[in-house]
């Protein structure tokens, strides 16, 4: 019969700490090497932000866990840390440093979990002179069905891309028709069908898709590439089921596809998910400086006008490298620019726990300084080797 104290002791054991650290070491090393083959984002998803790393044979459909993932190791380490802090807690100057270090690491790990779970990153692309009140998340695509019958107000129905991936029939309540997924491509290339079409098959029977063929592609793994999602959708009116035909929608198609039914009009678009803000940003000027006589970039900066009617906040903001702009929980970073310098690309991050690392850094640094001053004094005095904490 184990007492709660014994149980706590075994959860708090240093051996478990060492095992977790060793597992984390192996995971990080393997993950880093795997990035060469799989790319940064896949590895992040499969190695670091998962409970297990799964292995499945190339032909089989089953999968088996081969190694604990980042979330599992992190969680065990977190529990182990908290347990050991409680288990070994004593009030003494000698232990204060070590305790502070471990409290800081707990904050760091917990903050890391919170970031993985709650932080949302998106982009805002603004042309010079234009303004926007939403950012786009290219990792989450959505099918937007916008009713444009009434010129004054748009009625938008958004279907997440992951739902399209599952296939089948979608029947959104706000629409008088069903959407049947006839084709879905995580990553694809589109090509125009020329006069001498040859064997190319049009992707759809309606809209621009009649002149375009679509091919599936393996998912993008490089830093500078991303998936181009496409889908072929069949529209069937509610009730009497005469199909209106199929439409092609894709991330790379600039124009929305139009759809008419009983005197009403809709736009179909597959686009990055949008996050609307209660304010607008207008890009007044984007500048891209280089060092004189070279092509080495010196600075990128965006001069932006903030227009917030809700909070009555109207002012000019300059966003540049290493100087983000934080507003109402969102942080705007200078991330990139349009190829011809005609506009800016701002990264928008909403991370409720962004302060955790800052707090952790201060706590751990204090603890380490305290602890190592102790150790160093002993070391310099040729005292005996430091004892275990």
């Amino acid at each position, binding site marked *: 019969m184990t007492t709660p104290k014994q149980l706590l002791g075994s959860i708090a054991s*240093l*051996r478990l*700490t*060492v095992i977790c*650290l*060793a597992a984390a*070491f192996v995971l*990080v*090393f393997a*993950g*880093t*090497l795997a*990035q*060469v083959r799989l*790319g*940064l984002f896949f*590895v*992040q998803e499969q190695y*670091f932000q998962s409970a297990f790393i799964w292995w499945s044979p190339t032909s089989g459909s089953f999968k088996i866990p081969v190694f604990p993932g980042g979330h599992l190791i992190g969680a065990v380490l977190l529990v182990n840390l908290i347990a050991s802090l409680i288990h070994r807690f004593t009030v003494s100057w000698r232990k204060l440093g070590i305790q502070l270090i471990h409290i800081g690491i707990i904050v*760091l790990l917990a*903050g*890391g979990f919170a*970031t993985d779970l709650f932080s949302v*990153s998106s982009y805002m692309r603004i042309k010079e002179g234009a303004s926007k009140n939403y950012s786009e998340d290219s990792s989450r695509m959505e099918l937007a069905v916008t009713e444009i019958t009434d010129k004054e107000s748009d009625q938008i129905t958004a279907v997440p891309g992951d739902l399209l991936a599952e296939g089948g029939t979608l029947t959104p309540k706000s629409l008088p028709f069903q959407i049947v997924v006839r084709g879905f491509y995580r990553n694809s290339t589109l090509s125009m069908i020329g006069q001498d079409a040859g064997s190319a098959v049009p992707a759809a029977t309606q809209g621009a898709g009649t002149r375009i063929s679509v091919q599936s592609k393996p998912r993008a793994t490089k*830093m500078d590439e991303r998936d181009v999602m496409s889908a072929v959708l069949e529209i069937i009116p509610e009730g009497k089921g005469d199909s209106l035909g199929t439409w092609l929608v894709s991330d790379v198609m600039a124009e929305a596809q139009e759809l008419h039914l009983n005197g009403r009009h809709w736009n179909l678009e597959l686009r990055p998910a949008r996050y609307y803000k209660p304010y607008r940003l207008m890009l007044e000027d984007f500048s891209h400086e*280089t*060092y*004189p*006589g*070279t092509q*080495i*970039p*010196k*600075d*990128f900066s965006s001069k932006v006008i903030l227009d917030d009617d809700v909070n009555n906040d109207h002012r000019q903001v300059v966003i540049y*490298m*290493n100087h*983000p702009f934080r507003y109402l929980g969102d*942080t705007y*970073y200078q*991330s990139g620019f349009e190829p011809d310098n005609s506009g800016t690309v701002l*990264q*928008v*991050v909403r991370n409720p726990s*962004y302060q955790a*690392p*800052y707090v*952790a*850094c201060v706590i*751990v640094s204090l603890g*380490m*300084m305290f602890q*190592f001053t102790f*150790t*160093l004094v002993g*070391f310099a005095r040729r005292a005996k*080797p*430091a004892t*275990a*904490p």
Partner: protein
Amino acid sequence: MKRLAPYLVLLAACLWIAASWHAPKLKPDSFDVRSFSRLPVLAGGRIKPLDTVARNSLLIMRGKQTLRLSNGESLEASRWLADVLFQASIADGYPVFAIANQDVLGMFGLPQANKRYCSYTELQPYLTKIDEEGQRAADTEAPKRTPFHTAIYNLRNSLVLYQQLKGSIHPENTKDFSKEIQSYAEAVAAAGTALKQGAATLTDDQRAPLAIAAARYESLAQFAHMLVVAPPAGGGVAAWLSTGTALLRVESPASIPVSVSAYARMGDALRAGNPASFAREADAYADWIGKQHPELAGRAGFEQRFNLSQPFYHSMVLYVGAFLLACASWLVCPKGLRKTAFLLLVLALAVHSFGMFSRMYLQGRPPVTNLYSSAIFVGWGAVLLGLVLERLFRDGIGAACAGMVGFITLVIAHHLGSNGDTLEMMTAVLDSNLWLATHVVVITAGYSAMFLAGMLAVIYVCLGVFTRLLTRESAQTLTRMVYGIICFATLFSFVGTVLGGIWADQSWGRFWGWDPKENGALLIVLWCAIILHSRWRGLVRQRGLMAMAICGNAITSFSWFGVNMLGVGLHTYGFMDKAFPWLVAFVLAQGALILLSRLPVRYWRSFRLEAGHCDFVATGDKPRCSL
């Protein structure tokens, strides 16, 4: 006498270093390029002396900072540059392009030697071919290039650089540049007056010379490697011009910029074979620019001095000396040799620091800005820590480690520096002195500590296995040193990594992105944490700690260089294919040392006799030796 000996050695070393501050003696009738070599120009985004341009260009083309001619004579970098700028026809004959690839040599129908230096004239018939193949190589990603294509790509870059250098002052086929620009300026002035006086258009006689000149200067403006025309006093860096651009803006003979006519006169003197006049013109121009831009000229002059003194080369030699003396001190004359080693190390560190702080002054940046400077700093930090150890323990071990790590890191730096200007400008995202001074410096100090701990462990293993020098006391001292240094490394690596995360949060919007370089730093932190916790838990003892510290060497080298070779992520500052075999060799060597450290105690020469006296610690039933 015996007590004085260490100081005499120190004095000799000081004299040797002082001697390098003297400019080399001139041969009679040769051109004095001392003033010429410190003239400031704008190249690669910063003001630097012509000496630096010359040295870096030769380094890129030839792999060395001086030029050895076919007749065995050697030519100073600046003297070579003067020929390239002013009398290209002679410079074209110098063997400056190093070609080591057999296939490339074969392409030119040259005998397959190990390495060959070709001149521009020799390569001229193959320029189109080189350009085509080079373009093909440029279209392939660096990691996927064949050795042949890498070589041809580099050769093409060297040739482009050479051609740009040739077009930096005046067109290649110029005879008398002073006269040419004078008559050009007069023609411009005449045309201007004619237009002012109401002529609707210019006559063909007026237009023809202008059109020819404009075409010549237009191409100069486009291809110049550096901007040599200084603006009048007060003009900023952005106001520097190439001679071509400056000439296109000339309105009359009076408006020819001082820099242009000065370089023109220098060139004319060089072509005329008149050393006295060349030196006089260079002196005069150096004086002028010193008055107009005292700060820039002073800095350029300092940089030229810095180039000449080669502080890192000198400290490299001193580190080897100190290492050998410290090792010898374990066999003979312990006190005297140790003292000498210590003094030499202090001198080496002083010279090393002079070099590092000079670079900081020249660049106006914290010490670490690229891989080259990180190697300089890692060595500096490790030597400093090693000296502290030596001062505390006085047993020669700290000195030996400091000497070895200092030497190795400077050799690494030397090889990293062969890609051109090591004081390059920082790209936008890195342009933050605050973060360069905190995150980068702290994390690099962590590397220093890891390597020093690793080196101490290597000494423990080597002394223990191969010699009888490792006593029980010295083994314990070493253990405490390694433990202490690893604590240091943990502190620096952890704080540095977190600071890096905060910088990333400030500039990329995420604290942690699992980028390879970030992972590399995390690996060091995790490894330190594993070492410390294993030690506290009693999972490892002396030899285990040493093995882990040696493994730390391999991990740190992976984090420092290995991750940059993966070619993914935001920290890829260039693929270093040349360094890869060395990294693998280093890691394998660490593996071998770890295996060595696992040898049973009875095979360790130092412990063989003592094995009977081991402290047995009861852990379960199996008695274990505290070693």
